[in-house]
């Protein structure tokens, strides 16, 4: 299985640490499920960037698909 990857050059920096973000494998827990993904992460504090295309793309699709009563 390929790893779900959202690595891309980004102008975003970590606001707390003022560091450039680096690609890293992380486990994302979303809607009760864990996904193995690669995201841009602050090397110091571990803060993760969720890019807009992920939040409004696949993550939104998951949310709509799993909408509960």
């Amino acid at each position, binding site marked *: 299985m*390929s790893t779900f990857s959202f690595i891309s050059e980004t102008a975003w920096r970590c606001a707390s640490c003022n560091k450039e973000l680096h690609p890293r494998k992380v486990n994302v827990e979303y809607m009760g499920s864990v996904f193995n993904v690669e995201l841009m992460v602050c090397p110091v504090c571990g803060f993760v960037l969720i890019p807009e295309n992920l939040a409004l793309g696949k993550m939104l699709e998951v949310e709509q698909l799993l909408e509960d009563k």
Partner: protein
Amino acid sequence: MADGTRTDILARTESVCPTCLRRLPAMREKQGEDVYLVKKCPEHGEFRTIIWRGPLPFSSWQRPKKASPPRQTFTDTEKGCPFDCGLCPDHGQHTCTALIEVTSRCNLRCQVCFAAAGDHGAADPPLERIAFYYDRLLAASGPCNIQLSGGEPTVREDLAEIIRLGRDKGFSFLQLNTNGIRLAEEEGYARSLKAAGLSSVFLQFDGISDEVHQALRGRALAAVKERALVNCGFAGLGVVLVPTIMPGVNSGEIGSIINYAARFSPTVRGVHFQPVSYFGRYPHQPHNSARITLPEILLLLEEQTRGKVAASLFAPPACEHALCSFHANFLVQDNYRLQGITSWQQTCCAAAEANVEIPSAVEGREKNISFTARQWAAPKACVCPPTMVQENEDELDYFLRRAKTHTFSISGMAFQDAWNLDLERLQGCCIHVVSPEGKVIPFCAYNLTSSEGRALHRTWDV
């Protein structure tokens, strides 16, 4: 209590006397971990019926909603609940699912039957009368989900026409409540109902062993049920397995039913448990040991699936009263294992932190109608092999693809009988039956009978 167990009154509500059906004040009374509905008739004495048993905290099972009265009522409030059902203006929830009893005939003689089918020889309502039932529902609440029930609806030769009529009237989700015998035995029958517009089959399914079917339905039906499932699968009909759980009879098969159901995903869209209730003639109060409560089923689910179906995943309902049901959603993985895909804890904690306003009952009803219609019908997406993760697919892609076809719901609903009837629950009921005269009556009120078999709303006694 004499044994030193502490007793607390949790809430005051109302009920009826199981013998004379007069309305009585009642209490939800906690005794140790268990909760009882307690009431006293001046003529027939005290009744103490278990409504919650075991270590899952009763206090955690809440989902308040603001009452939302029916759009159009067909009765006035005169004698008070539960005597004015029609619905009356005091009812707090709209119809989410309406049952239309298309016949009282049946091709089984079950020990357990809420409708006391087959006993009274009432004639089947003609098609024009069923059109009137559909119209009454549209007037009372607007489009809702329909369950064609009975008796055994498949004994009617014009069932496809009844389905077509419902579609023409604007109902988009029609479900058939059936024992599955005709679906299993008649070539092409499932396809003909699908072609008429049927969305889903609510298949009576008490267990995987013939012993269970024999005990509850008087006939070995395991092979029949499986043939019905296969035929529904080929016809493109979604199926919900519906076990009536009776302690000591099939309470040991809860985990096996789930495993069996998952192997038939995506034809099987979910399992819906119904703890046994005591409608009909019961001269003596059914013993509390003959009852099983919702939290007990949750714990048996967890135990018998070795923790795969955890009790903590389940939520009280958005639509009906919290004490009436539980539900949780899952994804059936390639190896047929179930993965929980919602977390009630997350949802309820987030709501508490956000100090969210109590929603109106009608909001829950809208959610429930669309969720049920989506989950209990066959998946819209094509179930194309191969199902394993593809070369260029990431985990999220796989999850999305799989979830379009292999979501799976586990739910349970506790019906109320003359002993455990709680009028607060009844007033929040969203499962309604259309009576022969066209009244819309909450399911548990419609089927309520005194211990002597006198029906409160049905036109025949048992």
